[in-house]
C-alpha cells in the first residue's frame, strides 16, 4: 500500500504544528521521521491516524484521496499505530486488548475469547513473540506490552504501521529486538513509519529518512549520512554531540547512602536496599529503564516519599527530615516532570525562579516579598541561562520545554548547594537546550558540588557521568565507570551483572554498535542474517 500526505497543515491556536507537510511512504519500506521533540512528528501521525483533524491537506492511499475522520477510518484503511504512550487497558488480558474494537462474537454479543486467544498465539508465533494471551497487561514488562501493541495492529491487517518513539522505553538490547521485528515486518510487505529523534536507530534501520524541523519538512537524508550531518539537519545548525568535560576531580565523599528502602502503597519495595557514595566534584548517573525505582530514589532524597535506611549529607541525616529541611540543607532538586512538579504554569517566570526561595533573606521584605529583588533576580537568571522569554512577567507555561527546564535548573542553582539532584534533566528538551543544560551541570560539578543525575537516556548518561549506577527492579546492579560501553549498560539495565554483561556484549554486539564501528555494516545488516566481510 502506498501512502501519501500532501500539504498537511495543523494549527493549535497560534502555533503551527505542521506546516504544509508532504510525505510519501512506499510499500515495504521503513520510512524514518526524524525530528526533535516538539518538531511536529507525533502531530503529523495523529493527523494520519484520524486523532486530529488537519486544517488543510490531503491523505492519499494508493493515489486515491482517503477520508480519515477518526481512528476507525484509519484502521479500516490499513493504518496501524503504536503510540508512544501505549494504548492498552492495564486490567485487560492480552486477548481482550487485541480483540477490543473488532471483537468476534458467538451470537447475542457474547465474546468469543477463544478466537482472540488463537489469533494472539498465531501472530505471536509468526513473529516469535512469546506472548501469553491470558496474561494481564499491567503485569507485563513494557517491552512485551509493545509487542502486544504490534500484535494489535497486525490483527487488524495493518499495511502501514506507525511506530511513535518506540524505543523510548527500551534497553539497547530490546531496541535491537525491535529493529529485528521491524525488518521482519518489512520483509512481509508492511510499510513502517518510524518516528524518532535518535540518530543511531535511524541509521540502523531506515530505508528513507525525512527530517522535520519546527513543523516543516526540511529534507530527505540518506541513511548512510554521518550522524553529525543528520543532527545538523534536525537542529538547523551544527551541534556538539558530546559535552566537552575535563576528567572529574573528586573530593571527599559528601553523601553516604546506606540500605535505602522505599516501599510503594502495595508494600512492594521500589527502592530495595540501595547503597552508594557520592563525592564532591563528581557526577553519578543513575541509569535504568523507566520504572525501576530511579524516580523514587530521587524523590526519597528530597523526602518527597518516606524511606528507611540512612542518607547522610555532610554530617546530617536526611532520612526522616522534611522537604523544607532537606532544601535548607542545600539540596537542589530538578524533578522528573517539570510541568507538574517543577513549575507552576500560571505563575510568571520571575515567580517560578523563586518558588522555593520565597523565605530567603534576599527576597523577603518585612512580612511580604521584595518584588524588586525578585524581578532583578529574574533578569539576572534569564541572562545567565539564556532563557528565551518575552520577559520576567511571562507565564512559565508559555515557554518551550527547553526554556521551562532552564527556569527550573536556574532556580535550583541560584543558591549554594551541597548536593544537586536532577531527574531526567533534559527530557522533552530541544538539542540546543540539552547542550546548554549539560554544560551547566558539568560546571556545577567543577564548582565542587556532588551531582546525582537520574536518566533513562543512555546518551545522556554517557555524556555526563563520571560513574554510572545501574538500577534494575529497585536494586543497584552495579556501579561502573562513566565510559562503560552502551551495550554493557544496556544488559545491566536488564539485570545482568557487570562481568557477565561485559562478556555477553563482547560476544553479541548490537546492530547500532556495529554500525558505529563500521558504517558499511548498515547496508549489509539487512533482513537476511549472515557473515559480513
Amino acid at each position, binding site marked *: 500500500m502506498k501512502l501519501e500526505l500532501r500539504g498537511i497543515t495543523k494549527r493549535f491556536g497560534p502555533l503551527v504544528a505542521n506546516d504544509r507537510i508532504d510525505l510519501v511512504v512506499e510499500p515495504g519500506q521503513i520510512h524514518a521521521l526524524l525530528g526533535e521533540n516538539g518538531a511536529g512528528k507525533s502531530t503529523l501521525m*495523529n493527523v494520519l*491516524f484520524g*486523532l*486530529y483533524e488537519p486544517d488543510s491537506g490531503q491523505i492519499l492511499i494508493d493515489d486515491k484521496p482517503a477520508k480519515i475522520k*477518526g*481512528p*476507525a477510518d484509519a*484502521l479500516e484503511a490499513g493504518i496501524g*499505530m503504536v503510540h508512544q504512550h501505549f*494504548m*492498552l*487497558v*492495564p*486490567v*485487560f488480558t492480552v486477548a481482550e486488548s487485541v480483540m*477490543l*474494537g*473488532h*471483537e468476534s*462474537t458467538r451470537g*447475542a*454479543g*457474547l*465474546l468469543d475469547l477463544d478466537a482472540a486467544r488463537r489469533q494472539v498465539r498465531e501472530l505471536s508465533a509468526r513473529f*516469535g513473540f*512469546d506472548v501469553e494471551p491470558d496474561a494481564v497487561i499491567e503485569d507485563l514488562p513494557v517491552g512485551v506490552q509493545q509487542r502486544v501493541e504490534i500484535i*494489535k495492529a497486525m490483527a487488524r491487517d495493518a499495511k502501514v504501521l506507525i511506530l511513535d518513539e518506540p524505543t523510548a522505553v527500551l534497553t539497547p*538490547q530490546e531496541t*535491537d*529486538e525491535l*529493529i*529485528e*521485528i521491524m525488518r521482519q515486518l518489512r520483509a512481509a510487505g508492511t510499510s513502517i513509519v518510524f518516528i524518532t529523534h535518535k540518530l543511531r536507530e535511524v541509521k540502523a534501520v531506515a530505508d528513507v529518512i525525512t527530517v522535520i524541523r519546527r513543523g516543516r519538512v526540511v529534507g530527505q537524508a540518506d541513511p548512510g549520512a554521518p550522524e553529525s550531518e543528520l543532527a545538523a539537519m534536525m537542529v538547523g545548525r551544527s551541534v556538539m554531540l558530546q559535552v566537552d568535560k575535563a576528567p572529574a576531580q573528586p573530593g571527599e565523599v559528601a553523601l553516604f547512602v546506606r540500605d535505602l528502602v522505599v*516501599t510503594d502503597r*502495595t*508494600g*512492594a*519495595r521500589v527502592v*530495595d536496599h540501595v547503597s552508594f557514595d557520592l563525592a564532591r566534584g563528581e557526577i553519578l548517573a543513575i541509569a535504568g529503564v523507566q520504572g525501576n525505582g530511579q524516580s523514587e530514589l530521587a524523590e526519597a532524597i528530597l523526602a518527597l516519599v518516606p524511606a528507611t535506611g540512612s542518607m547522610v549529607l555532610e554530617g546530617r541525616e536526611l532520612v526522616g527530615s522534611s522537604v523544607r529541611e532537606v532544601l535548607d540543607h542545600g539540596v537542589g532538586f530538578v524533578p522528573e516532570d517539570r510541568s507538574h512538579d517543577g513549575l507552576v504554569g500560571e505563575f510568571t517566570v520571575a515567580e517560578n525562579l523563586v518558588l522555593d526561595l520565597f523565605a530567603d533573606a534576599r527576597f523577603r521584605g518585612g512580612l511580604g516579598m521584595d518584588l524588586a529583588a525578585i524581578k532583578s533576580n529574574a533578569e539576572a537568571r534569564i541572562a545567565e541561562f539564556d532563557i528565551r522569554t518575552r520577559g520576567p512577567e511571562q507565564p512559565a507555561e508559555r515557554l518551550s520545554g527547553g526554556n521551562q527546564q532552564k527556569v527550573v535548573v536556574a532556580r535550583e542553582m541560584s543558591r549554594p548547594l551541597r548536593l544537586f539532584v536532577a531527574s531526567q534533566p533534559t527530557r522533552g528538551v530541544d538539542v540546543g537546550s540539552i547542550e546548554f543544560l549539560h554544560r551547566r551541570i558539568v560546571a556545577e560539578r567543577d564548582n565542587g558540588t556532588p551531582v546525582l543525575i537520574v536518566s533513562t537516556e543512555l546518551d545522556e548518561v554517557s555524556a555526563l557521568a563520571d560513574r554510572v549506577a545501574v538500577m*534494575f*527492579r*529497585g*536494586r543497584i546492579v552495579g556501579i561502573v565507570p562513566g565510559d562503560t560501553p552502551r551495550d554493557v549498560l544496556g544488559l545491566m539495565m*536488564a*539485570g*545482568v*551483572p557487570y562481568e557477565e554483561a561485559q562478556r*555477553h556484549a563482547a560476544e*553479541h*554486539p548490537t*546492530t547500532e554498535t*556495529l554500525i558505529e564501528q*563500521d558504517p558499511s*555494516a548498515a547496508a*549489509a*545488516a539487512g533482513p537476511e*542474517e549472515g*557473515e*559480513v*566481510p
Partner: protein
Amino acid sequence: MSTVTATPPAQPLAAPERGVVAPKVSWRVPGITAAAGLLALLAFGVGAPSGAHSRFDLSFRTDAVQLSPLVVPSQVTNIVIGVVCLLIAAFTVAQTVRRRRTPMWLLAGFGLLWVFAFLVWAVAGKQTSLVDLLQGSLLLAVPLAFGAFGGVLCERSGVVNIAIEGQLLVGAFAAAVVASVTHNVYAGLLAAPVAGYLLGLLLALFTVRYAVNQIIVGVVLNVLAVGLTSFLFSAVLKPNSARLNTPPLMQPIAIPLLEKIPVLGPVLFRQTVIVYALYIAVAVLTIGLFRTRWGLRVRAVGEHPEAADTVGIPVNKVRWRNVVMGSATAGFGGAFLTIGYIGQFGQEMSGGRGYIALAAMILGRWTPFGSLGAALLFGFATKLASVLSVVGTPVPSQFMLMLPYVLTVLAVAGFVGRVRGPAADGVPYVKG
C-alpha cells in the same frame, strides 16, 4: 578487517533473579477476627444470661406449612460459636504467618456465625422472627441495589453518578403519580425509569457533552430533583391526594415450587415483580459487563478512553448511552419506594438512600454481584436495628441505627480491602 557477525536474532537473556518484593504483611484480618471471636465468646457467650433460651420463628404466620421455631440455649450456643470463631481466627493467624490468604468463604462463614451469635445474645429469653428479618433486609436492599446498579453502569464507562439519590426520588415520584392516575401499578413501574432517564439526559449532557465536573453536576441534579418533587408534592399532589398520590401497591407473586423451599422460599420467591427484576438485573448486568462485546467496550472506555478511541470506539457515545441507562435503572429502583413498599409519595422520601447505594457500589467493587451483596448488608443492618428496637436489647437502638452509616463510611474510606475503581472514572474525555 575481521569478520563481524550481523545481529544475532533476538535472544532472551537468562532471566535475572527477581528482586525479592515482599508484600507487607497485613495483620488486619487476624486482628479483626480475633477481637470479634473474643467478643463472641466473652460478651455474647459467657455474658449471656444462663438458662435463657433464644427463640427464632422460621415461618410467617400466614404460611400454610408452619415450621417449628428454632429454640437454642443462649449461653451454651454462643460459647460454642465463640470457640469456633476463635479457631477460625487462629487459622487466619497461621495463614498470615505463612503469608497466605485466608479463603473468602471462610471469612464469610465467620461473619454469618458471628452475626448469629449476636442475634442469639440479643434475643436471649425473648423471641424474634428470622424470616421477617431476612425478608425485611431484602426489601430494604432493593432500592439500594438498583441505585448501585445505576452507579455501576455509569461509572464503568467513566462517569461518576452522584445523582443516584435524585434518580431514585424522581423514579418514586413518577411511579406514584402515574400509577395513581392510571390505577395501574405496571404503568407506574414503566414511568419510573423514564423519569430517571430524563434526569440522566441532563447528567450526560453536562458531564459528557460539556465536560463539566461530574460531582458538581450530580449534586446539582440531586438538589434539582428534591426541589422539583417537593414543589410538585406540595403544590399539586397534596391538594389532589386522592387522585394523584394514592397509587395501588404491587402485589407479591408466588413462584410455584420455589416458594416451598423452607425458610428461604417465602423470603425470596413470594415477592413483587420489582424484586424478581432485581434477580434478573444482577445476572444480565454481570454477563453483559464481563462476557459481551458491549461490556468489553464499556470497561475499556472507563479504564482508558484514549485506548478505546484509538481502536475506533466512540468514547462519548458509549458514555452517553451508559449514563442514561444507569440513570433509568436507578429510577426504576425508585419505583419500589412508592408502589413497591410504602405506597404514597412523601417529600424527600429517598432519604439518603442514593448515597448509601453509591457506597454499596464501592463496597461491591463496581460489580453487580458485589453491589447486591453490599446492598443486602446495608439492608440487613437497617432491618436489624428496627427489629432489635422492638425486641429491646442491651444495645441502645440509636447505635444500631448508626450501623449502616458506619459501614458506609468504612466502605467509602477503602477500609475493606483494596478498592480500585475504573481508572478513568470521573475524568471527562476531551479529544486532543
